[in-house]
C-alpha cells in the first residue's frame, strides 16, 4: 500500500481546480502551471524509480480501504509507470510550448484547467486496475479533450470536433455495453480477478465476442483500421501545442488499454484474438501511411503518421512474443516523444510562415537552420534511420515477426517504413529546401529560440533513446516479460 500512487492523478486534478480561480490572470496561471507540471514530472519519475526498485516491481493501492476484488485498486507496474513518465514529459513540453504560442484569449477561457484535467484522465487510465474505473478515467480524459479540441472555436474546429465527439461518444457507449457483458459473464470488473476468472471460465464463444467488442472500443479511441477516419481532420484544427499533446498521448491511451487487456485478461484464445489484432495492425499501418503520402499539409501528414505508427505498436501485440512486445513498448516511448516533437515543429513553422501547407513554404533551412536540422533529426527518427530511436524499435518488431514466421506483416511493415521516409522527406524538401518564399522574417532569432527551447529536450531524448538503445531495450524487455506473465499482476493485486 502506498498513497504515493494517487499523486500522479491527484496533483494535476488539484492544480486544474486551483487554476479555475485564477482563470483571468494569465501570468499567474502560467507560473502555477509551469511549476506544477515540472513537479508532476518529478513525481512520475520518482514513482517509476520506486516501482523499479520494488522487489515485485508492482505497487498497488486499495482505494478507500476496500479489499481488492471488491473495491477499486490502483496498480503501478513497470508498463504503467513508464507511460506515466512519458505522459508527464509530453505534458511539460507542450505546456511550455503553449506559453509561447497560445493566444491569451484562449488562456482566459480555462485552457490550463482542462489541460491538467486531461493529464489527470491520462494518468488515471494508466494507473487503474479496475475496468470500470478505466472507463471513468477515459471519460475524464475525453471530456477534457472535447473542450481542448474545440478551444478557440474557429469554424473548422467546431465542425471537425463534432465528428470527434460523436465518434468517441459512440465508442464510450459500446465501452459501457462491453463492461456490462463482461460483468454479466464473469461477475467482476477488477482486472486481476478478471484475469483469473477468464482462464477458468469455459465460455470461449461469449468471451471472444466480448474481447472483440473491447477491441472495437479501444480501436476507435486509438485510431485503428478501419476506425481512424476521425483522427486526421480533428487533430488538424487546434493549435500546435494541443495537437502535439493529443498526437503524442491520446491515441496511445487506447493502445495502452488494448495491450493491457489483451495481455492480462483476454489471453484465453490468442490464436483467434491476436490474429485479428495482427490483421488490423497491417491495415492500420498501410492505410495510414497511404493517407500521409497523399497529403501536402504539414500537420495532416503528421496526423496520418500517427495512424500508421499506431499500427506498429499493435503489431507488437499481435505477434505476441516477449521480443515483439518489448519492441512495441519501445515504439510507444519513441513515438510519444518524436510525434509530439514533430507536431511542435509544425507549430513553430506555422508561426514563421503563417501556413501549414507545404507548397507555400520553402527555403526555411536558409533562414532558420536550427529549426531545419532539429526537424530533420526527428523526422529521420520517425522514419527509422539508425542510430535514432525509431530504427531500434522497428528492428525489434520486424525481427520478432520474422521469428514467428508472420512474413506478410514483415513485408507490410517494411513497405510502410519506406513510405514513411518518403513522406517525411517530402516535408523536408518542400518546407526546408528550395528558395525562401516568405518575403520578410516574422519571427526573429530570439523568438525562434524561445519556440525551439521546449522542443530541444524531446529531440535530445530521441537521440538518447537511440544511442542508449541497449539499456532501454533491456528495460522494455523487462516490461514485456512482466506483462506477459499475468500471475505477477494477479498476485500483487489479490495478495496471494
Amino acid at each position, binding site marked *: 500500500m502506498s498513497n504515493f500512487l494517487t499523486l500522479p492523478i491527484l496533483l494535476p486534478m488539484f492544480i486544474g481546480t486551483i487554476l*479555475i480561480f485564477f482563470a483571468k490572470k494569465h501570468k499567474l496561471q502560467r507560473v502555477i502551471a509551469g511549476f506544477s507540471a515540472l513537479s508532476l514530472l518529478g513525481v512520475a519519475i520518482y514513482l517509476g524509480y520506486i516501482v523499479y526498485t520494488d522487489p515485485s516491481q508492482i505497487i498497488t*493501492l486499495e*482505494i*478507500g480501504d476496500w479489499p481488492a476484488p471488491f473495491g477499486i485498486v490502483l496498480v503501478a507496474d513497470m508498463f504503467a509507470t513508464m507511460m506515466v513518465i512519458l505522459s508527464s514529459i509530453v505534458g511539460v513540453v507542450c505546456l511550455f510550448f503553449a506559453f509561447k504560442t497560445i493566444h491569451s484569449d484562449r488562456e482566459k477561457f*480555462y485552457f490550463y484547467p482542462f489541460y491538467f484535467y486531461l493529464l489527470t484522465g491520462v494518468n488515471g487510465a494508466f494507473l487503474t486496475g479496475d475496468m470500470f474505473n478505466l472507463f471513468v478515467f477515459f471519460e475524464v480524459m475525453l471530456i477534457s479533450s472535447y473542450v481542448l479540441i474545440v478551444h478557440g472555436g474557429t469554424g473548422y474546429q467546431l465542425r471537425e470536433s463534432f465528428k470527434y465527439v460523436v465518434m468517441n461518444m459512440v465508442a464510450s457507449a459500446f465501452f459501457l455495453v462491453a463492461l456490462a457483458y463482461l460483468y454479466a459473464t464473469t461477475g467482476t470488473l477488477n482486472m486481476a480477478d478478471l484475469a483469473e476468472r477468464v482462464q477458468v471460465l469455459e465460455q470461449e464463444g461469449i468471451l471472444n465476442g466480448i474481447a472483440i467488442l473491447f477491441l472495437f472500443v479501444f480501436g476507435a479511441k486509438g485510431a485503428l483500421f478501419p476506425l481512424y477516419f476521425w483522427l486526421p481532420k480533428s487533430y488538424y484544427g487546434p493549435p500546435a501545442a494541443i495537437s502535439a499533446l493529443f498526437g503524442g498521448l491520446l491515441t496511445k491511451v487506447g493502445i495502452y488499454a488494448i495491450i493491457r487487456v489483451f495481455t492480462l485478461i483476454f489471453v484465453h484464445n490468442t490464436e483467434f484474438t491476436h490474429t485479428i489484432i495482427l490483421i488490423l495492425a497491417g491495415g492500420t499501418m498501410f492505410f495510414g501511411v497511404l493517407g500521409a503520402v497523399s497529403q501536402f499539409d504539414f500537420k495532416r501528414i503528421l496526423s496520418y503518421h500517427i495512424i500508421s505508427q499506431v499500427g506498429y505498436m499493435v503489431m507488437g501485440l499481435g505477434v505476441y512474443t516477449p521480443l515483439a512486445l518489448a519492441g512495441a513498448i519501445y515504439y510507444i516511448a519513441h513515438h510519444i516523444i518524436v510525434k509530439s516533437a514533430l507536431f511542435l515543429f509544425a507549430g513553430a513553422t506555422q508561426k514563421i510562415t503563417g501556413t501549414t501547407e507545404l507548397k507555400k513554404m520553402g527555403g526555411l533551412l536558409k533562414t532558420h537552420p536550427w529549426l531545419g536540422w532539429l526537424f530533420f533529426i526527428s523526422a529521420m527518427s520517425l522514419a527509422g534511420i539508425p542510430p535514432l530511436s525509431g530504427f531500434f524499435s522497428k528492428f525489434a518488431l520486424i525481427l520478432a515477426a520474422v521469428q514467428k514466421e508472420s512474413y506478410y506483416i514483415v513485408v507490410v511493415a517494411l513497405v510502410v517504413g519506406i513510405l514513411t521516409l518518403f513522406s517525411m522527406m517530402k516535408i523536408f524538401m518542400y518546407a526546408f529546401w528550395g528558395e525562401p518564399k516568405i518575403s520578410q522574417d516574422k519571427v526573429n532569432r530570439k523568438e525562434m529560440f524561445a519556440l525551439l527551447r521546449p522542443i530541444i529536450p524531446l529531440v535530445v531524448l530521441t537521440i538518447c533513446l537511440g544511442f542508449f538503445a541497449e539499456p532501454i531495450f533491456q528495460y522494455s524487455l523487462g516490461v514485456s516479460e512482466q506483462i506477459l506473465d499475468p500471475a505477477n499482476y494477479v498476485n500483487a493485486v489479490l495478495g496471494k
Partner: protein
Amino acid sequence: MKNNISLHTVAQISVFIVLSFSFYLLFAGHNNPGGGFIGALMAASAIVLLYVSFDLKTIKNVLPLYYPYFIATGLLIAMGTGVSSTLFGYPFLTQFFQYTTLPILGEVELTTALMFDLGVFIVVIGIALLIITTIAEDDE
C-alpha cells in the same frame, strides 16, 4: 408579463420548500436514497425556478454568484476529504463514521462521506446553473 404577482409569490415560497428538501436529500444520502448529486440538482432547480419566474438580470443582482468558483470549491472539498484520510496513514478516500448525540437532532451518524457529498453538491449546483445561465445568456 407585467402583472404576474401570483407567480412571484408562489415562486418565492416554493423555492424555500424545494431548497430545504434538497438539503434533506443531501443529508439523507449515503445510507438512504438521496445524496449530493440528486440534492444539488434539486437545489439548482429551485434557483432555476427563480430565474424563470423573475428574469436573469434581477436574479443576478439578488444572487451575485459566479458559478465556476462553485465548481472549483466543490472539487477542492471533495478532494480534500479524500486526501485527509491519507494524512492518518489510511488509503486515499477511506471513510470514517461515528454515531453521536447532538442537541435537538438526537443521535446522528457523522461521516466523512458527508463532506465528500457536500463537495459533489456544490460542484453539481455550479455546473447545472452554469450550463443553464450560459444557454440563457446566449441570445443577448
